[in-house]
């Protein structure tokens, strides 16, 4: 049994119930919106919506953002099984999660991501899934970079085998020749700056457009 593939809500330890409030808002958004694209994952997805790149590139595609900071694969699994896929028929789902799975091995994390992908495919039979690779983190080379890279290597092989799913890894864009990550790309060596999101969004947007065209052509 893979602990990274067990659905788990986040407990309200701090006392202001923010996780469940955000989840409830996403469930409500499913009732009101008709997105063509659904973005779901952790803070890497959530913060994207606060930058110009969202308004410029992804909003026009009728996208919803169900990113939640701190989420692991377990938390995203719980959310998609508890209302966040209800009443919507997105053509594409962009999934980005795994960097917060601190208690799990690379294999377990990869298994968690593929478990989410499988559920998305079964719940949304007409959708295509784009799985984003985990970005490197930390200013210099460190064990978390190795782990995230290992997750990516496993996903590179497993994701395409799931069917209507693709894997997109833009990690290489963020490591400089001396092995360091710049604060201009990741302001805390984990989260992307506006410039960092620009770098990520070019290939992602291209792939999204291509994928959306394919779903239209297939009709």
């Amino acid at each position, binding site marked *: 049994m893979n602990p990274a593939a067990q659905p788990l809500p986040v407990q309200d330890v701090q006392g202001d*119930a923010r996780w469940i409030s955000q989840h409830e808002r996403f469930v409500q958004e499913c009732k009101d919106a008709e997105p063509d694209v659904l973005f779901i994952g952790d803070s890497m997805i959530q913060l994207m919506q606060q930058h110009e790149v969202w308004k410029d590139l992804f909003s026009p595609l009728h996208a919803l953002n169900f990113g939640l900071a701190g989420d692991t694969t377990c938390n995203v699994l719980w959310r998609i099984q508890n209302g966040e896929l209800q009443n919507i028929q997105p053509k594409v789902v962009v999934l980005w999660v795994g960097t917060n799975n*601190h208690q799990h091995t690379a294999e377990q994390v990869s298994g968690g991501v593929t478990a989410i992908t499988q559920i998305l495919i079964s719940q949304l039979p007409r959708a295509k899934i784009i799985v984003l690779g985990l970005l490197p983190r930390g200013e210099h080379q*460190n064990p978390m970079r190795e782990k995230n890279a290992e997750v990516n290597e496993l996903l590179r092989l497993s994701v395409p085998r799931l069917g209507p799913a693709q894997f997109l890894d833009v990690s290489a864009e963020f490591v400089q020749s001396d092995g360091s990550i710049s604060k201009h790309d990741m302001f*805390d060596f984990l989260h992307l*700056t506006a410039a960092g999101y620009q770098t990520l969004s070019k290939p992602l947007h291209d792939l999204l457009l291509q994928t959306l065209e394919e779903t239209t052509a297939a009709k």
Partner: protein
Amino acid sequence: MSEDSNPAATPTPCQDIQGDGRWMSLHNRFVSDSKGKEPDVLFVGDSLVQLLHEFEVWRKLFSPLHALNFGVGGDATQHVLWRLMNGELDHISPKVVVLWVGTNNHGHTPGQICGGIMAIINVVHQKLPRAHTLVLGLLPRGKSPNPLRERNASVNAVVQAEVVSLSHVSFLDMDPGFIHSDGSIAHQDMYDYLHLTPQAYQRVCQPLHERIKSLLDKHAP
């Protein structure tokens, strides 16, 4: 409250549990980046300070004031205290230090959190005797009324009372009225009911910008 018995006022670095050394990298960056810079204003605190740097409002309102940003996501008062005591103030002489921290002090009482803030104020005053410290009030958080809102409001009240008699410190309430009549906070203002959207930052930063400018004007040459 003595610093020994108050965890919020005991300088504490962040432990690298995750394994990527990010907190220490950021601290070291701040120390080294500050060599050769001459900021008039230093912002220090938690993610509310750190994220401010990532939006247009920083470039428009605070870069022109020659400001540096030493915000670190997740920091509580004891972490900021450690950073300021371990190099982040050693190479610069800002005229104004803007301090925004306390919302991450989970498990501490308002009295302890205030003690942490006062400890930071004292360190700043020791290292930068001519600087003015502007303490920003903690914002409400959570979608609906909850104990953390009460805690943050209490912190603000206690801090405000403590600094009123100090000529080198002032307090600014940063809440423009985020809580609606039904007690809720809108996600258009706080996308996760804690962190500010760019438009909310615009709202809170106007009065902040004015206050900093007037402090800079008053600062003896």
